């Protein structure tokens, strides 16, 4: 166990290395550049390949090629670069390719607010590429979580053979704080196919909607990996309605059917709470303070932090909605996850949006005030 004082961006890089990432390609962008810089320093020590590509499109595409080359791979960027990567993320979802993409969120749209924080990419993370597909999206609120969730992201990418996105933000990325880095972390290694090359059907689920192991190129499997809708053998199927429909349904359900297993939340005094702050990322920090201050004033406040945004933890929110009188959702955007909460709660409790734009996170007092106003 090593204890360091590092910022969230370094924690992401350290987490990626610990999880076995051995190929990283990126393009400089504020406020994510430090991840790319740290990877350029760390990877060669592990005989891993670091590439600074000509743009974010090349970055995501080269890491996807490297994934089929046999490596655990990752790229990191911020809003505008994340937009450019969306087509590649769609290709990865379409082809069951494991990859980790880190988006250190900054204010948008367009060039936006490069040096300030936001949480405006929560919907782009889920819906950014065209077509129907699913991604897993993890959201750290501290440097420690940046490390832990990056390791977790690599593991989930292997289990589900899917893109896993980490949405951190400028505040998490640039805040230096204590991080405990274990000497050994639990790692899911890439699984080789159980069946021999002759009987291997690359895109046929074996159990729980998940595929058999993933061969690397040049291991004798002769695999065809196609970004067009394909049959179980990888062959072109865009002209076959039933096969195409089944493929899209499979790649969606392999994630949504496992939503319960994927739930990752942290709760503080939610059991008897009348008012619950539902938060994620940086605003979780002032929200916890606000909940504690409220309790000390005799108000039954609780705190729920989502460490996973997608698939959305419907069951947890549903439970909170049945029990609390009021749910407040502070987030650094116009109120996006608020709508998800409102959808699940479906009128059983009052749901308030507490949006904040401009680059600064809510203060505990602002969060407290929203609650008082709601009463």
């Amino acid at each position, binding site marked *: 166990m090593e204890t360091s004082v590092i910022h969230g961006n370094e924690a992401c890089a350290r987490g990626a290395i610990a999880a076995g990432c051995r190929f990283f390609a990126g393009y400089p962008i504020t406020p994510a550049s430090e991840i790319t810089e740290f990877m350029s320093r760390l990877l*060669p020590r592990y005989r891993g390949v670091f590439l600074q590509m000509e743009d974010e499109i090349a970055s995501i595409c080269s890491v996807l090629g490297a994934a089929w080359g046999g490596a655990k791979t990752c790229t990191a960027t911020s809003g505008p670069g994340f937009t450019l990567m969306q087509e590649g993320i769609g290709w990865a979802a379409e082809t069951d390719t494991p990859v980790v993409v880190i988006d250190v969120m900054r204010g948008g749209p367009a060039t936006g607010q490069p040096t300030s924080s936001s949480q405006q990419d929560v919907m782009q993370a889920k819906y950014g590429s065209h077509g129907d597909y699913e991604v897993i999206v993890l959201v750290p609120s501290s440097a420690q979580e940046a490390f832990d969730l990056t390791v977790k992201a690599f593991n989930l990418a292997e289990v589900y053979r899917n893109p896993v996105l980490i949405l951190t933000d400028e505040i998490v990325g640039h805040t230096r704080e204590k991080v405990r880095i274990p000497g050994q972390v639990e790692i899911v290694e890439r699984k080789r196919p159980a069946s021999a090359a002759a009987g291997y059907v690359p895109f046929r689920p074996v159990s729980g909607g998940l595929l058999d192991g993933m061969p690397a190129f*040049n291991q004798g499997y002769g695999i065809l*990996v196609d970004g067009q809708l394909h049959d179980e053998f990888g062959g072109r199927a865009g002209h076959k309605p039933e096969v195409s429909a089944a493929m899209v349904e499979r790649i969606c359900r392999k994630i949504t059917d496992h939503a319960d297993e994927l739930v990752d939340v942290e709760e503080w005094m939610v059991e008897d709470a009348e008012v619950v702050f539902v938060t994620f990322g940086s605003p979780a920090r002032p929200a916890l303070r606000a909940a504690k201050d409220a309790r000390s004033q005799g108000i039954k406040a609780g705190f729920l932090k989502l460490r996973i945004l997608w698939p959305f933890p419907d069951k947890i929110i549903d439970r909170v909605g049945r029990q609390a009188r009021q749910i407040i959702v502070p987030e650094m955007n116009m109120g996006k996850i608020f709508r998800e909460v409102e959808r699940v709660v479906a009128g059983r409790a009052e749901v308030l949006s507490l949006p904040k734009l401009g680059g600064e996170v809510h203060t505990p007092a602002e969060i407290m005030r929203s609650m008082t106003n709601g009463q």
Partner: protein
Amino acid sequence: MHPLADKYIRKRTLPLIFCPGCGDGTVLNVFLRAVEDLGIFKDLALVGGIGCSGWLPTYLQSDVLHVLHGRAIPFACGLKLTDPRRKVVVFTGDGDCVGIGGNHFIHAARRNIDLTVIMINNGIYGMTGGQVAPTTPLQGRTQTSPYGNLEPPFDVCELARSAGATYVARWTAAHPVQLLRTIKEGIEHPGFTFIEVMAQCPTQAGRYIEGTSDAGELLSLLKKRAVSLEKAKEASPGEMTGKFVVGKLHHLTGRKEFSQAIYDSFPQEKSG
């Protein structure tokens, strides 16, 4: 079925999507012969872009990525850099390679990464119905240049050479013997190899630009326009109008190859 096809073709993906008379079939044929002659089938890692030519590798039963429009080269970089022993070959078209994918093309050439990029140039966006490409001749009429193309076309071989490619050659679909020799040499060349194949497209470019969909006529036109390196040196600019040079245009040895440079830079001992 031809014994070479029987040996290398992924029969499940047949029939070929190519139109009758298309030049892509010739390239597939020649490529299979090159693979056979070199005995490199097990080392192949193939990447296809988007467009007619991008489908070409999907018919081989080796490991194949069929990727996003314009992005075949960065995908190929990922394959090469995870194992430099791979023979990575990219099949792309003119629109894929130097329209949407132009930035990746010049940067891969600059890095001198050991990829073999085979660009089949039909001078048009064929699969989408015949729109103007960055390689369409001046005044060429297409579905999006109905009054004649006003943009001068790229000389893609010149572009590759100036960007840093270390092996550059151009042939046509009417030169299968020369193309075979070039593909073999290009795959063996340890650096960025660019091979342009000028090819007939009876369905789109033939119909709209050349005024004929007859593959034989189009092949004759390609032959007529192809000027050997030696003859081109003596030709006046006027004599080269509407023509192009074929042959091995550039071959530079001894320049450091990129994947090797990366692996050579690693410390000898693992530090973690």
